């Protein structure tokens, strides 16, 4: 049994079910209580679970993340909403110096089972710092896990897995996809394992690795290319950015021998580099062509009038496919 839900609704449902399932769960963030969240992702939860479990916090990200760490240390299961990814910056120290390190520092005596949910990525015509995709900062921090669903079904399953994970998880919610489309989401609580990618479309000529809002650009490009050139591309949704699903990545390369990576994040030191390194380590001899990255540029996400030129477009992805296959 299921319902057709948007990603936002799937997230709300996951939060609702987790709050109902376990008394230790609580959610904190700015405007998430009475207001139901600036994107309405927590709509109805305050009325249902009360002010002690659905908490409107002061405007203080370090305080929010830091007290969530304290709550997690003392037996609660907090889910923090940070209003936009870049607003993690004021709380970055709490995240990397403490949330990520507490287990290591205490040699396993204490852990921080914390989830930080945050709208992520561009394409929403936001002002500065509302369109970040700096997932690399978190993937580069030992002790954190990073997850980015691309659809409602994965969003619910991954969020539940994130909550059940004993370690801190950064849950990146592609803002552009919040209400973009609906799909069937099962009513019951289910889990999608963290660290597991998904082959969303099989192919033999080239593999595209993508995640988040870029999945749709990848799939559109692949469809157009098949119609225009007859090439069949495999599309892999990574879903988890740390730890990356190496086995799925390698298996796909062994099958197609060509790859393209599509990500919104800046090119330099973006996760594309990491994926290419993994392929280099494990499957270099299977490559028929160098791997291309179609990414955001090494610039702060520009103002909304030219934002679309920063982001990977279907045309840029198509071009990347053509150049790689024609190599």
């Amino acid at each position: 049994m299921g319902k057709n839900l948007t990603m936002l609704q799937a997230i709300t449902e996951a939060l609702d079910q987790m709050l109902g399932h376990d008394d230790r769960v609580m959610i904190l963030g700015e405007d998430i209580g009475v207001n139901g969240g600036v994107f309405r992702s927590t709509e109805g939860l305050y009325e249902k679970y009360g002010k002690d479990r659905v908490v409107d916090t002061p405007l203080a990200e370090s305080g929010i993340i830091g007290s969530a760490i304290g709550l997690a240390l003392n037996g609660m299961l907090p889910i923090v909403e940070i209003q936009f990814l870049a607003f993690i910056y004021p709380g970055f120290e709490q995240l990397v110096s403490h949330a990520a390190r507490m287990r290591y520092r205490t040699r396993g005596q204490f852990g921080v089972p914390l989830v930080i949910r945050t709208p992520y990525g561009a394409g929403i015509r936001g002002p500065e710092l509302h369109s970040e995709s700096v997932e690399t900062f978190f993937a580069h921090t030992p002790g954190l896990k990073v997850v980015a669903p691309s659809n409602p079904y994965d969003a619910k399953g991954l969020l539940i897995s994130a909550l059940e994970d004993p370690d801190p998880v950064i849950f990146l919610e592609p803002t552009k996809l919040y209400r973009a489309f609906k799909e069937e989401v099962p009513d019951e609580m289910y889990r999608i394992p963290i660290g597991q990618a998904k082959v969303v479309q099989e192919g033999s000529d080239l593999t595209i690795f993508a995640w988040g809002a870029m999945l749709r650009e990848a799939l559109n490009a692949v469809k157009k290319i098949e119609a225009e050139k007859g090439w069949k591309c495999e599309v892999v949704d990574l879903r988890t950015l740390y730890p990356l699903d190496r086995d799925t990545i390698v298996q796909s390369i062994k099958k197609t021998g060509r790859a393209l990576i599509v990500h919104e994040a800046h090119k330099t030191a973006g996760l594309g580099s990491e994926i290419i390194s993994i392929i280099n380590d494990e499957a270099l001899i299977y490559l028929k062509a160098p791997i291309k990255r179609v990414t955001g540029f090494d610039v702060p996400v520009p103002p909304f009038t030219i934002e679309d030129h920063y982001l990977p477009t279907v045309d840029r992805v198509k071009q990347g496919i053509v150049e790689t296959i024609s190599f």
Partner: protein
Amino acid sequence: MPPSVPIATQMVHAVGTAWASKLKGEKNISIAYFGDGATSEGDFHEALNFAGVYKTPTIFFCQNNGYAISVPFEKQSASKTISQRAAAYDIHGVRVDGNDIFAVWLTVKEAVERALKGEGPTLIEAITFRYGAHTTADNPNIYRDQDEISTFWRENRDPITRLRKYLNKEGYWNEEQEELVIKQFNELIDAHLQRAEGYPKSDPLEMFNHVYAKESWHLKEQKQELNQILRKGGKK
């Protein structure tokens, strides 16, 4: 919680742990210790603010020894005292002679009672003094009149001296007892020191443990990598 390097960040943790105690209905409080320098950090303010908003059973205990390494408190803040900043967050603040053991004990006891009654957090500013250098790398003569100030505090405000005088006068203590106790504690310290120095050297491979509850594939492989290197070097 174990000590860590970042300053003032533990104050927000003490808000969170106390908040959890309150939510669970437990009769527990949380206490965070910090110095005068920490009161300039953002987390000091965020912690006091949150503690006030959620009325958490948290005690914020500031050991004000007058210096953050070389920076005297007058340069740290325009506020004359640290305790007065509690008023900014509408929480209870109190300033106490940090070298008076009874005053400190009483002040903290009151703060605990206040917290357990559900009346919220307390900021305690305990005035004390740092006799020596901040660390072995520090030379306090550069930034203060070390001998003059230290001598003054040692002669007039030393906490142990004061307690000894009081206990002697009341007949609870004497010189023989003190000599015996000093001897016993020296032996205990020596024994513990010996034991600590006798701990086996750390296994370098230990660095891969406890990053996550369950090891990621990266860590498994990197551990193997270092293991190979160590084996080749003949050391393990």
